[in-house]
């Protein structure tokens, strides 16, 4: 288990992290959420050892993470990073060997990943000669080539087209299936909701919400979507006790319900306004949990 415990970091008068604590289990896809500047990158850099915490520690399987453990970590930094003028195959072999792989195994893994990512034909190209999309793939290969037990990915989906997003999601799920702990940050909340088992949401360096996604959703206020045919304004929903109007669009009103609200009373009010063609009670979306948590 990868544990971030009480991580605190200040840059001058700015507090980047303030007692951040959460844990990522092996085999788990863990989404790391927060507004820009919330401290996600700082936390990930501390996990990777390229920044030092003022206080707190990072543990792996119960002990402090050391250089030897990090050989089994894969990292995709926020601003990416590859040698622009180095051939990609050579570069990936070099990175794999820095992570302790013998020459033969490094070569084998690199060739396998280049093949899988559709870059076999470009293995002698320099990074700077590749399209941005292909550079992203090489960057991903750099994080994966040494078969890491932990993946720390800072905005891995940023800038990917929908197909590349699906491919990356598939690869990460597969790695998690093989038992890797995967921590990644993202602003694409629907994507995180779709992929992740657990999330942590931070704001100004502090953890404000974390846990298994299905539990968080189950304990959040459910959303109720009601369509009253021909209504057009949705004023029927005003003043309902325990039901807050989230959004109105045409005939449809989306409500967030507090604990113990009687949905049948809501239905009766809607029926009074006209014929109800849709009445759907759902768990809250991650984006809604996120907004609530950050606004609180």
């Amino acid at each position: 288990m990868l544990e971030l415990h009480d991580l605190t970091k200040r840059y001058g008068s700015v507090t980047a992290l303030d007692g951040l604590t959460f844990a990522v289990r092996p085999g788990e896809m863990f989404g790391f959420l927060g507004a820009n500047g919330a401290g996600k990158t700082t936390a990930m850099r501390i996990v990777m050892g390229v920044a030092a915490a003022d206080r707190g520690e990072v543990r792996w399987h119960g002990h402090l993470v050391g250089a030897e453990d990090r050989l089994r970590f894969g990292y995709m930094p926020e601003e990416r990073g590859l040698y622009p003028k180095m051939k990609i195959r050579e570069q990936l072999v070099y990175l794999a060997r820095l992570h302790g792989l013998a020459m033969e195994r490094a070569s084998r893994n690199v060739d396998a990943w280049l093949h899988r990512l559709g870059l076999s034909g470009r293995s002698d190209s320099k990074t700077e000669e590749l399209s941005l999309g292909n550079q992203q793939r090489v960057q991903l290969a750099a994080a994966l080539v040494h078969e890491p037990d932990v993946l720390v990915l800072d905005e891995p989906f940023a800038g990917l087209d929908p197909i590349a997003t699906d491919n990356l999601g598939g690869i990460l799920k597969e790695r998690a299936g093989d038992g890797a702990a995967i921590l990644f940050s993202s602003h694409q909340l629907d994507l995180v909701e779709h992929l992740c088992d657990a999330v942590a949401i931070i704001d100004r360096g502090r953890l404000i919400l974390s846990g298994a996604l299905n539990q968080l959703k189950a304990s959040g206020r459910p959303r109720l979507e009601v369509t009253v045919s021909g209504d057009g304004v949705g004023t029927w929903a005003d003043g309902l006790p325990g039901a807050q109007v989230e959004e109105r669009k045409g005939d449809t009103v989306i409500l967030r319900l507090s604990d113990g609200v009687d949905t049948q009373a809501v239905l009766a009010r809607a029926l009074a306004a006209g014929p109800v063609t849709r009445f759907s009670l759902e768990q809250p979306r991650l984006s809604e949990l996120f907004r609530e948590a950050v606004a609180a």
Partner: protein
Amino acid sequence: MIGTWEAIRLVTEREVRDRVRTRAFLISTVLFVLVGVAAIVIPAILKSLPKPSYDVGLVGRYSQPVRQTIVDLGPTVGGTVRLRQQSSSDAARSALASGALDLAIVDSRTILVDRIPSDPTSGLVRLAASASQAVQIQTTLENEGLSPQQAASALRSPPLPVEAVQPTSKDVSGRRTVAFIGILFLYIAIVTYGGILATGVVEEKSSRIVEILLSTLRPYQLLAGKVLGIGVVGLGQLLTVGAAALIASVATGGNVLPSGGGLTIAAAIMWFVLGYAFYSCAYAAAGSMGSRTQDVQSTVAPLQFILLLTYLLGISALSSPDSTLVRVLSFFPPTAPMIMLARAAVGQVAWWEVPLSVALVLVGTYALIRVAGGVYARSILRTGPRIKLRQALRMAPA
């Protein structure tokens, strides 16, 4: 587990491979080899050029011993002398004007030349002076009653042996040339390879690959690998140049190197290793303070300045190797490599002085690695604007 040496070896290998494949490396090697070979071959060609011959016209009667004395002056002015009897002073003048004669002696009294050469050390001027002396002394002695043979043998008495009070080698000027070239190469090599190192460091920083590298390497491992890799390439290049120069020297007759010249070349290579070791970490630190490649120009400027100054001092030390300033600077780590190279080639150096200087440079290198390595480790992961030296020295680790 990847050990420190394994890590450094991997980084070193990458640097070497990265460097030797560039076109700049190929071009600079070819250029250096050409310069090195030219420095050996051109003097050899000049040496093998045909020696000048001087046609000396004689007007009036001269005894056979006097004639022989004049012919024998040839080697002392670096050529040969041929005598041509002239019927009159006017005939000699027109022969001089037409170029048939270089010099004429008229009636043991006057020496004629077409034009006085502007270079007072030229062979013709020296020939004129020596010939005038020989003729005058011969005439005086004959007038005093000696036979021409007796007078000539008095003239040809062997010169007194010259003993130097200071034990100097007759090859100082040759060694000065070798040391001059050595200092030039040392300067170019340290500045070039230091610059390459600084650029490489800032490239890793600006491309952010350093984030990935430093998640498995410690900063000092990365730094050591880079310094070693580029140093190995630099040393290899210098050795290539040295070998090419040596081969050229053998091919052109083998005796072009002055005695002690080989030692000076070996010393230059040793001082490159030490000088590079001393300056490389400072260059890497300077590189790490920039955030883009363009910043390197300004962050390495103070180092370039110090090296240029040292180079100029080294050149001037070749002509005043025993001054107090030069002595002091030959033990001061930043200047020692070039200055001690100069002193040892042309000056008076006691047996203990070079080892002491080497030891001081090593101590200085260790101290600089501590400071510059710290600046590097603190700056390399710091993004944002260019870092000032004062900040870099004070900063906490990233």
